[in-house]
């Protein structure tokens, strides 16, 4: 009984970690540009396909390839689609983001087809370990570990480096940061590259878990993580991570606790939560401090 509960907890934390990373990637971009980057889904997808391409060579190469692919795509998207739109009104940014995401997805379908492909990535992690007498999946523990490392790492980067400080300042008041000499292009490019890194990590873990890549794999993750970003508080990075985590945990708990007939409506409940949070506490659960514009 305890064992079963612990398994659910580990499951929840592991999924929570994945969604926290995804939500953080979305939140980073929103922070510096007030842009909801729908294309984050494609960053995850392209990382997944990089793994598909390289996993037979070596897992390390696959992970590196995923990171490079996602970061590159992020930078290209920023440079070509979003930079010209800097300062445009939020509705335009939203539409553009939607179009970019759709475009990349369709190009990928053109290149690789729409059928899922099997990937036996990191089979070593498929095994189980015994912890205090309970059997847990190794992959889940690795997921939790990787999520923790990346969250701590990102926090360290933002708090302790000059570039991270500049990013936080730009997120709060872009114009004033520029007046102080913060270079907009560098800060925004860094945010995109970092979000690419996070997307790659999520992709690797997700592919290892599901054994599949398909053109919509990023989309299903991002749509849910997106709920987390909103619930946690748009513009707040701790909020995004926490919100993503909450949502991940909620999906597993809902799965475990809902009666079987209602389980399929899981996502509907989650999205209802978005609407409720937006109404009751539009700034989110952990709102960004000193956020200049109300969203």
């Amino acid at each position, binding site marked *: 009984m305890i064992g079963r509960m612990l398994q659910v907890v580990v499951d929840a934390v592991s999924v929570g970690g994945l969604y926290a990373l995804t939500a953080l990637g979305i939140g980073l971009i929103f922070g510096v540009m007030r842009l909801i980057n729908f294309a984050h889904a494609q960053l995850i997808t392209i990382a997944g396909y990089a793994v598909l391409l390289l996993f037979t060579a070596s897992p390390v190469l696959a992970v590196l390839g995923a990171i490079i692919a996602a970061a590159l795509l992020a930078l290209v998207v920023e440079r070509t689609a979003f930079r010209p*739109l800097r300062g445009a009104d*939020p509705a335009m940014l939203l539409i553009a983001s939607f179009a970019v995401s759709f*475009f990349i997805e369709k*190009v990928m379908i053109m290149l690789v087809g*729409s059928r899922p492909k099997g990937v036996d990535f990191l089979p070593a992690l498929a095994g189980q370990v015994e912890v205090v007498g309970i059997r847990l999946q190794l992959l889940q523990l690795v997921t939790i570990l990787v999520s923790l490392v990346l969250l701590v790492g990102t926090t360290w980067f933002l708090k302790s480096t000059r570039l991270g400080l500049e990013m936080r300042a730009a997120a709060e008041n872009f114009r004033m940061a520029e007046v102080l000499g913060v270079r907009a292009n560098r800060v925004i490019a860094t945010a995109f590259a970092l979000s690419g890194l996070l997307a790659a990590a999520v992709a690797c873990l997700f592919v290892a878990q599901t054994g599949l890549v398909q053109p919509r794999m990023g989309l299903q993750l991002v749509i849910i993580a997106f709920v987390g970003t909103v619930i946690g508080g748009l513009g707040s990075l701790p909020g995004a991570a926490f919100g993503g985590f909450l949502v991940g945990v909620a999906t597993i708990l809902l799965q475990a606790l809902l009666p079987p007939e209602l389980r399929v*409506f899981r996502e509907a409940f989650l*999205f209802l939560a978005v*609407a409720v949070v*937006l109404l009751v506490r539009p700034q989110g659960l952990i709102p960004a401090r000193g956020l200049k514009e109300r969203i």
Partner: protein
Amino acid sequence: MASLTQSRWFPLVALIVIVLALAGLAELAPAVMQRRITQGLINLVAVVGLYVFVGNSGVLSFGNVAFMAIGAYVSALLTMPATAKAVFLPDLPAFLATAEWPAIAGALAGGLAAAIVALVTGFPLMRLSGISASIATFAVLVVFHVVIGNWSSVTGGQNSLMGLPIYVGLWTAAGWAVIAIAVAFLHQESRSGLLLRASREDEAAAAASGVRLVAHRLFAFVVSAFLSGISGVLLVHFLGTARVETFYLDLTFLIIAMLVIGGMHSLTGAVLGAIVITLVAELLRQAEVGVSIGTTTLAAPLGFGDAILALLMLIIILFRPNGIAGGREIAFPKTQPQTRT
């Protein structure tokens, strides 16, 4: 005649004439072409529906396809022959299982259902501003997609419903297109529409001058949902089947793309977008089907058409954000164009 061309009713008349002319031309075209144009007219109703809300309030809505789905399924359930329902939906409550309403009643019921859902969901949502409201409409889309897709006893869930009465032909679609254009035009010329548009640019100023923004937005949202619901009805009674997957992200993108490329801020833009993009989509589809050269077929890969559409949309956003119509309504050439702000 001069007074008509200069009057504010000109755009309405002109657009209706264009639609009817298009249908008239289609009469002379081969059957395949007719079907495409009928599809285009159905798209037109959907785009005009989206425009009523987005164009006037300035708030992007991702949720209109959910209203299409609601309209489609309500009409389907009310008009499907009982025999078909017994096959696909054996668990329907008795009232629905035996209902075989006439087409027009089913259509109106569909539109009304969508409008009611919009009223209920919009009531809290319209208080949100800008991006939050858009995100909330995205939530509406997903929620209804999940609900419709899983409420198997009522909707058939992921399975298609087949055997729907097919009554939407060229002139039915054209008729509804005309109605949609008229409704949209009357709305945007109404006091509510004008007030909404005026406050689009500056919410704070509008609120300060006492405009009850939430009420006007909600009104636009409901009208928009009604028209979107109708377009959903038309779609399923044109295809003869209803499938929940139709009403999700791809269709959302298509309708938004039509509106953005045509021009978000005028009714002419909406109509133009629907017609132009339907044509373009048809050409692109041909490219995917391919051209036979000798014994080989030269064809673009799957997804090509959609990618080009997305590219078009991005180009418009970057270089001509007001779309082809540029925020203006169609005007008789000799006069100054009426600027739709």
